[in-house]
């Protein structure tokens, strides 16, 4: 056996869950040195989370399954000790941060780890104070974790692990459910940790824009490592990323399409702007005007107003004002994105459209009639609402039964129901899955079943809350292509999302909510031109939009930029 003296050393690791269909990990070899920052990427189901659980001995000690090979933590095999012993070396923060928090206030949450290791009270107080300072939660000691925002919860989950003072920190998709500035906050903390204290950092991440500071990127596919190279090299390998269901950096892809050599590809918008000018490229104003003209043309084709919001205010029973003075009109055939920070009120707003909530002041009219007079059941015929987590609604044994729930409960005949189920499954690309068990599908598959089950009622308007969360890039694309097809077939679409490139490439119009008020409302192009206002609302446009803005012309996708660019 060779030298296993790095921070983490993985040798020929294989893993098969008990009852699992195949290997979750196959023959994985990985060496991570002290102080390195390694990002692990790859499609859903590639074994990324499984790999994390092997780092602190949850595999093989806690999870049931068969392990091959070895994992060494600073020279010691995980087979030789309990999870608790390795917990002091390897801190593991799980993807689902809600499920990890259990204490009644922030300080107690942080203290839980040190308590297990019999840290005395004085030292514990020092650690709580220090760690909360590092994750910028000073002053929150007495708050109940459940009352924190998503970003704060994630930072607390990190703090609770940091308090054990591990030398190696492993974060499993720490930013999936966060708004763009929340994501940035988490990565700034990660970067500071590494620079200040020589902590080794392993991060599983879907979003390429967040991996720019990494030393190395490891790509897993079907349980095997297909790439393990310096980050900037991997980021320039656009084809490899696309094959691995990872979104390539937009600026990099743009310049690749423009024929720039791989070694010279820029990564960030700033580098992009410099490279663009250096090569003498320019934006053709005529072609950019055509893009704007196309937006305007589309704007003229919408039908009559379906949803009208007038001076809406919503106050929760506990007195919290969630919305104030909101005016908004949604016309037939539109594709609207509602944006805003966690807790800005965007979900509260869309819940008014289908009668889950009613205005405490002002008016919400659907089809010209007040929602309060129609009620949730009647509104449900016109307004379909797909919740963020498909597991919060799926309950049937078969896909067909699940999709039939809506039509049946509304008293439709069997023949009619069958036809609608078939139609809805066809619309989401799941024909032939009728008899499958929905719980056996992937997250993307379950998401589609949830969409189909709402479509089966044939609503005019479809509201989707975070339709791409927890999906990999390929799944996100196919989900959003589906939504676009539905829109083109006549459905009015409203999405609530944090994923900015999805807004840029798919939505027509965007409304930005900040502290319960609409601060921007216009075509996506108009909204994304206002980078300052977006930043105040904790939002950040995608890289390609920033690049375009810096060049004085707002574009929404790599394809648009290519169309508008003139070479030399």
């Amino acid at each position: 056996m060779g030298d296993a003296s790095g921070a983490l050393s993985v040798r020929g690791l294989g893993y098969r869950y008990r009852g699992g269909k195949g290997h979750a990990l196959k023959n994985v070899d990985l060496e991570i040195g002290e102080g390195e920052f390694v990002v692990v990427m790859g499609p859903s189901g590639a074994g990324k989370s499984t790999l994390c659980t092997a780092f602190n001995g949850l595999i093989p000690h806690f999870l049931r399954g068969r392990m091959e090979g070895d994992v060494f933590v600073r020279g010691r095999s995980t087979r030789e000790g309990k999870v608790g012993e390795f917990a002091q070396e390897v801190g593991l923060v799980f993807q689902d941060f809600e499920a990890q928090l259990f204490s009644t206030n922030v300080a107690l949450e942080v203290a839980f780890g040190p308590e297990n290791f019999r840290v005395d009270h004085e030292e514990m107080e020092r650690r709580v104070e220090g760690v909360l300072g590092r994750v910028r939660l000073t002053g929150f000691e007495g708050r109940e974790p459940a009352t924190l925002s998503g970003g704060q919860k994630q930072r607390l989950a990190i703090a609770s692990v940091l308090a054990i003072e591990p030398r190696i920190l492993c974060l499993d998709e720490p930013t999936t459910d966060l708004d763009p500035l929340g994501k940035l906050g988490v990565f700034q903390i990660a970067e500071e940790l590494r620079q200040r204290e020589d902590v080794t950092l392993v991060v599983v991440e879907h979003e390429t824009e967040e991996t720019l500071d990494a030393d190395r990127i490891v790509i897993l596919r079907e349980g095997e490592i297909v790439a393990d190279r310096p980050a900037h090299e991997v980021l320039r390998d656009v084809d490899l990323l696309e094959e691995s269901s990872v979104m390539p950096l937009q600026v990099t892809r743009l310049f690749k399409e423009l024929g720039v050599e791989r070694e010279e590809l820029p990564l960030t918008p700033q580098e992009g702007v410099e490279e663009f000018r250096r090569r003498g490229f320019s934006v053709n104003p005529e072609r950019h005007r055509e893009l704007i003209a196309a937006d305007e043309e589309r704007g003229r084709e919408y039908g009559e107003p379906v949803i009208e919001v007038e001076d809406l205010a919503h106050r929760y029973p506990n007195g919290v004002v969630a919305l104030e003075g909101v005016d908004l009109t949604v016309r037939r055939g539109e594709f609207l994105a509602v944006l805003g920070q966690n807790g800005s009120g965007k979900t509260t707003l869309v819940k008014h459209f289908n009668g889950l909530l009613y205005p405490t002041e002002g008016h919400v009219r659907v089809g010209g009639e007040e929602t309060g007079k129609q009620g949730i059941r009647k509104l449900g015929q016109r307004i379909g609402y797909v919740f963020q987590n498909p597991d919060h609604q799926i309950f049937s044994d078969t896909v067909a039964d699940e999709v039939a729930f809506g039509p049946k409960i509304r008293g439709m005949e069997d023949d009619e129901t069958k036809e609608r189920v078939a139609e809805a499954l066809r619309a989401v690309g799941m024909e032939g899955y009728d008899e499958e068990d929905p719980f056996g599908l992937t997250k993307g598959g379950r998401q589609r079943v949830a969409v189909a089950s709402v479509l089966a009622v044939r609503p005019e308007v479809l509201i989707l809350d975070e339709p791409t969360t927890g999906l990999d890039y390929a799944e996100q694309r196919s989900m959003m292509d589906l939504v676009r097809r539905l829109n083109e077939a006549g459905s009015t679409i409203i999405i609530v999302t944090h994923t900015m490139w999805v807004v840029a490439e798919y939505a027509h119009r965007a409304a930005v909510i900040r502290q319960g008020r609409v601060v921007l409302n216009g075509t996506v192009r108009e909204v994304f031109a206002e980078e300052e206002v977006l930043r105040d609302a904790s939002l950040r446009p995608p890289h390609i939009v920033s690049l375009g803005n810096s060049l004085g012309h707002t574009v929404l996708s790599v394809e648009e930029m290519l169309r508008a660019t003139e070479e030399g």
Partner: protein
Amino acid sequence: MAPSLYLDRDTWIHRLDPRTKMFLLLGMFVLAFVFLSPVYEAVILLLVLFFGYLARSLSNLLRIWFILVVIAVFTIILWSIFGSGRTPLFLFVEREALLYGISIALRIDATVIAGMVFLSTTRNEEVAIGLVRLSIPYRFAFAVSTALRLVPTVAATGFTISEAQRSRGLDLESGNLIQRIRKYLPLLVPVFISTVRSTNVFSMALESKGFGASAKRTFYFQTSIGRRDVVVLVVFVALLVVTLALRVAGYGGLEGFTR
């Protein structure tokens, strides 16, 4: 929607040692179960409410009043029908049966409210430490406090799920009892599955933070039995003794009631 009953207020009841609070809760249960007469039970209920007032915790009544009313109404009706006594009142209901029903209703509500005051003034962590200080193994103590935590978490998940299913047309308000129970299936299955899933993550997170790494552990939360605790305990024990003596002497019963 606030997820748990605990109210972070700085009253002297909040500051009591968790062991004292547990003893008070048990004592209240004993008091509530001693008497049969509605008048005596009403006094016990008032005592519980007085504690709740001192602990500034009565605002939580707003969250459980519906359960209290349902329990009271059902208990009174059932005992009036099924109990029997000597003095006919109307139809087949006897005076003693009605009074007994009222006693039991007051008794159950008093114990529920006592539990509410306890949870409003005691953190889950305090429950765990209290039990450990009473020489109960930490793993068991932690399980108890985790169970307490699970209730509000499941309730919150259930709320989201009911929103999702109502959006799909589920109508929980109409139909007879059996139809209604069947309608809850679309809620129960996702609640169950989500809970199992998050419990699994939760237990992995515990392991990863060194839960059970060593047989002993330290506590961030400091507790000690102080002078205030001793005074409260002495006064309360005296109260218990007096009440039990009263009951033995024949007060607080209910003449003429038979099951």
